[in-house]
């Protein structure tokens, strides 16, 4: 399995000289199976360049959405394969008790907020995902709800012995005075448990978090603590705050890169980074 980060920024895309290193595009991750199968995680602004990079687009593309917040879906309408009549794009996202996934996405991806009506694109197929397992091409996918405002899924993706866990927007410490405590009571634990690679929300510093409790995101330190508790091999920091410059993020990561004191190998989540599992 090969994993490439096309968008690592959280909440809002942020282009500029200060974000060249970690990237300015929002969540989009390319996952390639050993046989070349393609799976995409989230449809943030990074999805546009991911789509443009596909020299030979497969006849079917699967996109797993963690949730429907704007920074995770805004790239969908700019993903070139959805306009290709020879490609079928399957979009998977959290089930709701009210409306289907397609209907909820169409609230944004239709006029007046978007010039094209996605419902006019026959190549799009929507799948409402409930917690559980399903197969996508060569990948075994486990989905489960995680702590974040509104229905939000984390994913565990397995191919042979390789395990990737993806929890881009996640606040497992919410309401806990002594995080992390008993794993039985920690959101996302089952998804991340002993994963080879964990891509996890690390949006805030401790001082920022004090005024943003309940916004659905983790501190950098809590993401490390979560990874250590779950026994993961490598942690990729993700969903960087739009106000965090490259220099700021380098300083934040420096004490933990290479293992630090936690025993978890921290890999700074930089746009363009590639990981082999």
């Amino acid at each position, binding site marked *: 399995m090969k994993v490439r980060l096309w968008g690592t920024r959280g909440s809002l895309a942020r282009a500029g000289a200060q974000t060249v290193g970690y990237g300015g595009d929002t969540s989009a991750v390319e996952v390639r199976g050993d046989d070349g199968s393609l799976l995409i995680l989230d449809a943030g602004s990074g999805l546009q360049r991911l789509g443009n990079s596909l020299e030979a687009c497969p006849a079917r593309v699967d996109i797993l959405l963690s949730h429907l917040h704007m920074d995770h879906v805004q790239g969908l309408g700019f993903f070139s394969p959805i306009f290709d009549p020879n490609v079928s794009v399957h979009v998977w996202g*959290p*089930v*709701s*008790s009210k409306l289907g996934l397609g209907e909820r996405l169409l609230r944004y991806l239709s006029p007046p907020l978007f010039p094209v009506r996605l419902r006019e694109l026959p190549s799009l197929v929507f799948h*409402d995902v*409930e*917690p559980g397992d399903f197969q996508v091409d060569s990948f075994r996918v486990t989905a*489960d*709800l*995680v*702590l974040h405002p509104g*229905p939000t899924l984390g994913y565990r993706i397995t191919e042979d012995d390789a395990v990737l866990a993806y929890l881009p927007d996640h606040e497992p410490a*919410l*309401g*806990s005075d002594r995080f992390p405590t*008993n*794993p*039985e*009571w*920690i*959101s*996302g*634990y*089952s998804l991340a448990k002993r994963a080879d690679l964990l891509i996890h929300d690390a949006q805030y510093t401790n001082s920022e978090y004090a005024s943003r409790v309940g916004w659905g995101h983790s501190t950098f330190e809590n993401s490390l603590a979560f990874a250590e508790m779950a026994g993961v091999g490598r942690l990729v920091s993700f969903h960087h705050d739009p106000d965090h410059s490259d220099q700021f993020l380098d300083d934040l990561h420096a004490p933990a890169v290479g293992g630090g004191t936690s025993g978890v190998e921290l890999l700074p989540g930089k746009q363009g980074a590639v990981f082999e599992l």
Partner: protein
Amino acid sequence: MTQQPIELILLRQFADHVATPLWITDAAGDLIYYNEPAETILGRRFDESEPMPAAVLAERFATRDLDDQPLPTQRIPLVIALNQRIPAHARLRILGLDGTWRTIEATAIPIIGQGGRLVGAMAAFWENDQP
């Protein structure tokens, strides 16, 4: 170790932050948590309690109606909430783990997740000795 569903994790965190006595079961009816305010009524700290699967709950916490007759399981609010997926309320007597009988009012609701999954039930209860 298996992680609890997110709805129950949130519910337990909620229970830890309120003064209302709360009791939480999973979808199988196993007791998985009661909060500190509930400990006074149930007669023992949760952390000092044994694991309580549904099968032993009736033995650990005997219940009676207000006429002091054993309360059929099917009339216990939590059982109704779990089995019928509807809210239920009752006034009943319960034997705490400290050996004391108390009269309580209990209201139970089923916890149903997105997509209609039954993930458990919660009961709020109050001691009420008024006639």
